[in-house]
C-alpha cells in the first residue's frame, strides 16, 4: 500500500465517527430538534459497545448494546424536547454532562480501572476487517481494500440518509416538520411521531459514531472518548448545510486535518520539531472553528430547527 492510499484509508477511518454523528445531527435537526447531545450519546455508546463485547466476547453483541443505549438516550431527549416541548439545549447539555460523569463511574465500577477498559473483541481486528486484496495496489481505490465494517457503513449511510430525506414520503414529512410544524399538522401529519422518530434515529446514528471510536477501530474504551468529536460532528453538520453529502464532505475535511496533523508531526524538522505536540493535536479543532466562522450567517438550517412544538389550545 502506498502512502496516498494509506493516508486516504486513515482519513476514512478518522472520518467515520464524525460522519455517523453528523448524519445523526442531520436527521434529528431536519425534524426540527436541535441535538447538541451528539457528543454525550457517542460517549455512552462507545462505552456500552465495549461493555457488551466484553460480556459476550462478541463485537456484534457490543454493537447491539451500543445501539440500545443510543435508543434510550435518544428517547430521553425526545421525551424532554418533543413530549414536553422542553428546551433542546438544556436537554442536550444535560445528556453531555451526565455522560461524562456516569461513564467515568461505570468504567471504574465495571472494569475496575481508570482511564482504559481492558481490551475486547473488536471490528478492527484482522479477521473482522473487510479485505479486498486485489485492489490494494490501485491508487485511490486501494484505500478501500482493508477497511472496517464501520467505515463502510458510514459511507453507505450517507447514500441511505440522502435517499430517505429527499426521495421518500417519510423524508418529505420529516423535512416539513423541521420547516413548519404547524403547516404539517394542518395537513394531518402527526408532528410528534415524526419528531420522535427523527430524534431517536439520529441518536442511533450518533451511537454508531461512538462505537466507531471504541469497538470500531480500537479494542478498548478510553475515558477521554469521544474527545469532542460530537461537537466536531455538529460543526460538520452545519458546515454541510444539514445535508448528508454536505456532512460527508465536511467530515472528510476535518478528518484530513487530523491525518495532516500526524504527517506534520512525523515529518517536522529543525525548529518545527520543537513545536509542542499539543499544537498539532489542536489543528483539527482550529480548522473546525475556522470553517464555522466561514459559513456562519450563510448556512441556513431548517426554518423551525430548535423551536419547541406545542399543540395550541
Amino acid at each position: 500500500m502506498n502512502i496516498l492510499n494509506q493516508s486516504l484509508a486513515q482519513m476514512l477511518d478518522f472520518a467515520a465517527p464524525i460522519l455517523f454523528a453528523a448524519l445523526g445531527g442531520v436527521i434529528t435537526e431536519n425534524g426540527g430538534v436541535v441535538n447538541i447531545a451528539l457528543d454525550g450519546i457517542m460517549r455512552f455508546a462507545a462505552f456500552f459497545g465495549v461493555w457488551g463485547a466484553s460480556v459476550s466476547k462478541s463485537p456484534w453483541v457490543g454493537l447491539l448494546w451500543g445501539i440500545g443505549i443510543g435508543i434510550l438516550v435518544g428517547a430521553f431527549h425526545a421525551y424532554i424536547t418533543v413530549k414536553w416541548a422542553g428546551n433542546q439545549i438544556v436537554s442536550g447539555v444535560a445528556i453531555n454532562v451526565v455522560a461524562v460523569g456516569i461513564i467515568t463511574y461505570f468504567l471504574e465500577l465495571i472494569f475496575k480501572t481508570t482511564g482504559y477498559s481492558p481490551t475486547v473483541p473488536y471490528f478492527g481486528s484482522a479477521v473482522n476487517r473487510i479485505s479486498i486484496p486485489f485492489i490494494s495496489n490501485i491508487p485511490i481505490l486501494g484505500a478501500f481494500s482493508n477497511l472496517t465494517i464501520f467505515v463502510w457503513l458510514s459511507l453507505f449511510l450517507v447514500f441511505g440518509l440522502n435517499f430517505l430525506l429527499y426521495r421518500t414520503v417519510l423524508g418529505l414529512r420529516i423535512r416539513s416538520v423541521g420547516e413548519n410544524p404547524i403547516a404539517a399538522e394542518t395537513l394531518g401529519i402527526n408532528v410528534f411521531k415524526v419528531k420522535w422518530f427523527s430524534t431517536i434515529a439520529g441518536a442511533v446514528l450518533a451511537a454508531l459514531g461512538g462505537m466507531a471510536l471504541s469497538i470500531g477501530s480500537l479494542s478498548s474504551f478510553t475515558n477521554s472518548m469521544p474527545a469532542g468529536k460530537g461537537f466536531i460532528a455538529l460543526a460538520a453538520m452545519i458546515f454541510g448545510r444539514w445535508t448528508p453529502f454536505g456532512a460527508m464532505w465536511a467530515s472528510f475535511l476535518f478528518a484530513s486535518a487530523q491525518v495532516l496533523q500526524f504527517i506534520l508531526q512525523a515529518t517536522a524538522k529543525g525548529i518545527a520539531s520543537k513545536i509542542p505536540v499539543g499544537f498539532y493535536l489542536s489543528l483539527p479543532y482550529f480548522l473546525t472553528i475556522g470553517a464555522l466562522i466561514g459559513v456562519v450567517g450563510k448556512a441556513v438550517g431548517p426554518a423551525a430547527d430548535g423551536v419547541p412544538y406545542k399543540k395550541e389550545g
Partner: protein
Amino acid sequence: MEALAVKNIVKKFPNVLANDNVSLSIEKGEIFAIVGENGAGKSTLMKIVYGLYTPNSGEIFVFGNKEDIKNSHDAIKLKIGMVHQEFMLIPRFTVTENIVLGDEPKKGVVFDYKRAVLEVKELSEKFGLKINPTEKVENLSVGIQQRVEILKILRRGAEILILDEPTAVLTPQETEELFKTLNALKQNGKTIIFISHKLGEVMEIADRVAVMRRGKVQGVVNKPDTSEKELAKMMVGRDVVLEVPQVKVEKGKVVFSVSGLTVKNTRGIIGLKNVSFEVYSGEIVGIAGVEGNGQAELVNAILGFLKPINGKIYMGMEEMKFITPYNMRTRGMSYITEDRKRRGLVLPFKARENVIMGQHSLYPFSNKGILNNQAIDEFVTKKLEEFDVRPPNGYIKAESFSGGNQQKIILAREMSMKHSFLLASQPTRGLDVGATEFVYKILVEEKKKSKGVLLISLELSEIMGLSDRILVLYGGEIVGEVMPSETTEEEIGLMMLGLKRKERVEQ
C-alpha cells in the same frame, strides 16, 4: 341542506373568553361570511372547527352528523379545508410538495414526485387556478401563494372551505381574482366560509353574514337585507364614523425635512430618487402611492436601516449625520410601524415591557440600572387605560393581544416618548374599524399638539381624509404635491400610476 353547524361553542383562553356560546348554521353551497373586529373570536371558532383547538364545550355537526373533531386529520376526513390567516406553507418546498404533503402519491416508500406534479397540474387546470407546480413557494407573490393554499385543500376533496381573512394581504386586483375563484367554487357546489373585517368585500361576495363581537354572535343577516353601515354598527356596538373631523392648526416651523434623498434598496436598486420635502409642526403630510414605489426605502432611510447614497435628513434645523433609530429618537422622532410583530413589539415580552421600552433606562423607570417595578406598573396601568388596550393588563405577553390592541400598545409607547415628529408608516394596516378610528383620533391629536406627522399609507381615503398636504410617490420619485381640498381621488390615482405629474405648489 345544512353543511356545517356549531352549537353552543365555548372556548376560554387564560386571559379571554374567545368564544362565548357560539351557535351558527351554514347551508351547503352558500358563501357565508363571518365579520367582526380583531379579537372577536373568528379565527378561534374556525380553528375549533378545523380541529386545531379543543373547545371547552359545544358541539359540531358536519352534513347533519355530530362529529368529534380532535385534529386536522379528522377535519380533512370530513371534507373540511381551511386557508389560514397566516399561510401554512413551507417556503423552501415546491408548489407540488406543499400541495401533496400529508397525502403523497407514492411507489412503496418512495415519494412519486413526477406523478405528484402531474396531479397538481390537472387540479390547477380543473379549477382554473394557474400555478407553476415546480416553482419554489418562496419565489411566489402572496396572491399566488394563496392559490397554492386553496389548491391544497381542494386536493383533499374539501367540500367546506374556510378562508380566514384571505384578502388581508391581497392587492385589489388579486382580491378580484379570488372572488372569481370563490364564485366558481360556489357554482361547483362547495360551501365557503369567508372571514373578513372588510365590510365592502363582504357585501360584494357573501350570501349571508354573521357578525361576531367579543366572542359572541351578534346576529346573522341576509346580504340583501343589510348594509355596510348596519354591519359596522353590529360589529363595533355603536355607530361608526370613519370620517375625520377636519381640524385646522396653525403651521409652525419645520420639524423634519429631507433634501435630495436618493436611496438604494437591499436589492441594490435605486428605490428613492432625489426626494425633498419638509414637515411643519401642526401638519400631517400624507405620502400616497402604490406599495413598492419607494415607501419602504424612505422609512428605512429615515430610521438609518438603509444608508442614502445621496441627500440629507434634518430633524428641525439640525442635519442628521449619523442616522440611527437612537439618534433620531433622541432628536424627537416617534415611529409607528405597519409591521407590528417584527418592528413594533417584542412579542414574547409583556405589554408593560413593550410600553416602557426605549425609556426603560430613564428615571423613574430605572435607577442606577435597577428597574423600578412600582413606577413602571403605575405608568403602564395609566397608559393602557388611556389607550384603551383590551384587556388592560400589563402582565400579558404582547403576542397574546389582537392586532388592534397590539397597535394600541405601540401607540401608548410612542406617544409617551418626548417627540416633535411622528413617522407613521401605514399605521392602520390590517386593523379593524374600531382600531382604525382610534389611530385616526391619535393622529389628529398629534396635529393639535403641534407635532409634525408624516403619514405613509396605501389607503387613499385615509390620506385624503387626514392630510393637510399630499405627496405622491411613484417609481421612487415625488410626482405630485397637492392639497386635499384642491384635488380628487381620481387625480391622485392617476399620479400614483405615473400617468400624471403635478408640480409643487409654492407656499
